[in-house]
């Protein structure tokens, strides 16, 4: 094991809580020099400006340096270099690798062959553990706890990797789920099996209106065009749900609305001013959580 973080299931409850505790410390004091002299390589085989800048800022604010590329069009993979060779080459220069790749499983493979820790910043429709940890951080920060919460998850529950990881990570904290999706994008059977096995109550519905009136967290997701192999299917479902400010009127006072961003049409702009909208602060929390992740994989002693 090289201390990599590929999937949220690589971390147990204790690991997760220690990341969240450390992230709280970074929120109070984000500028440190604990990664001084360390080089982190960010290998982005598909563009993701938000995630890349968040990781790179996390490194720089801890005193480390960044190398890498943000688009495979400008990297050696256009010359046909295999992932294997790139990882081996980069691990000669850097102390840790942050990788984003359009293919499922690329990060697990990279972690397997790399002598230095690998952090998965999204592999296709598969895993995106730093997003999950920042979701948990946001949930705990707004609710004061992760235990016994009612969580309503809306949108693409079939391809949405953040949804699948959130279910797995929350399973330690006795949640109750409501899954809201069109028929075409229902939660896959294996996650229902997972919930039953962990005694997690859940219900499924296609109706958004009113479905989150008793919820503590409303987790909205985007229908991601790039995950569809059938574009006709995408066209049918892309605008199926839009959250408007009026729909939030009868919700609990502690309800917070989360979204992994970017959003398209699923949250109307009139929601942004509502104090229950939390998605922009959620994105900011990503920085502290990624500082905690990098500190853990590079063993700075802060986590």
């Amino acid at each position, binding site marked *: 094991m090289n201390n990599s973080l590929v999937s949220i299931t690589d971390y147990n409850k204790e690991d997760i809580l220690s990341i969240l505790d450390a992230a709280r410390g970074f929120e109070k004091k984000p500028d440190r020099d604990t990664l001084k002299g360390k080089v982190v390589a960010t290998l982005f085989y598909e563009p993701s400006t938000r995630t890349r800048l968040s990781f790179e800022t996390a490194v720089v604010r801890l005193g480390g340096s960044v190398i890498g590329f943000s688009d495979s069009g400008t990297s050696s993979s256009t010359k046909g270099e295999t992932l*294997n060779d790139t990882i081996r080459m980069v691990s000669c220069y850097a102390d840790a690798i942050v990788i984003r790749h359009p293919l499922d499983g690329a990060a697990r493979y990279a972690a397997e062959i790399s002598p230095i820790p690998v952090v998965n910043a999204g*592999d296709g429709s598969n895993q995106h553990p730093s997003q999950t940890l920042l979701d948990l951080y946001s949930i705990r920060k707004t609710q004061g706890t992760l235990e016994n919460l009612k969580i309503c998850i809306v949108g693409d529950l079939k391809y949405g990797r953040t949804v699948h990881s959130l279910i797995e990570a929350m399973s330690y904290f006795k949640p109750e789920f409501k899954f809201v999706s069109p028929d075409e994008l229902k939660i896959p059977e294996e996650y229902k099996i997972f919930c039953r096995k962990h005694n997690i109550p859940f219900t499924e519905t296609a109706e958004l209106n009113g479905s989150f009136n008793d919820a503590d967290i409303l987790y909205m997701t985007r229908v991601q065009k790039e995950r569809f192999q059938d574009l006709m299917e995408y066209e049918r479902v892309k605008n199926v749900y839009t959250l408007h400010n009026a729909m939030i009127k009868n919700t609990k006072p502690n309800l917070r609305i989360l979204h992994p961003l970017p959003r398209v049409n699923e949250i109307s702009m009139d929601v942004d001013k509502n104090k229950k909208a939390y998605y922009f602060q959620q994105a900011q929390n990503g920085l502290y959580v990624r500082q905690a992740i990098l500190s853990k994989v590079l063993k700075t002693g802060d986590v």
Partner: protein
Amino acid sequence: MEKELKVAALKNGTVIDHIPTEKVFKIVSILRLKVYGQLLTIGNNLDSKRMGRKGIIKISNRILSDEETSKIALVAPNASINIIRDYKVVEKRALLLGDEIHDVMHCANPMCITNHQPIPTKFVVINEDGIVRLKCKYCTKEVLQDEINLKKK
């Protein structure tokens, strides 16, 4: 009497019995029996008490490797494999898949990294209530029984 005429006894080698009739030639191809130069008996649509009709393959002077056994376990999990020495069954090989299978089949997910780069596949075998599920170690998607596509090596 009639039974003996249909399938001759084997002195040394491997008998694969209770093969579903539609899987016989799949196994012939997995074991590359088309180019096998020694005594070989392939029977199909034989009467079977257990399964109505069945197939059987007898290969003289060849003991199947573990990899071949796991490939057969993937396509015909209820077949039986007996190793014969001097007309006697010396080993009844269980068609167990083990905890992990390495590089014998493709991942069914077209977006899996193993289908795009020269990477040996790995699947975790999950056996729950007698139902076997195969989960790709890389992309974490599960491969269904009718999606199994063995590697040709």
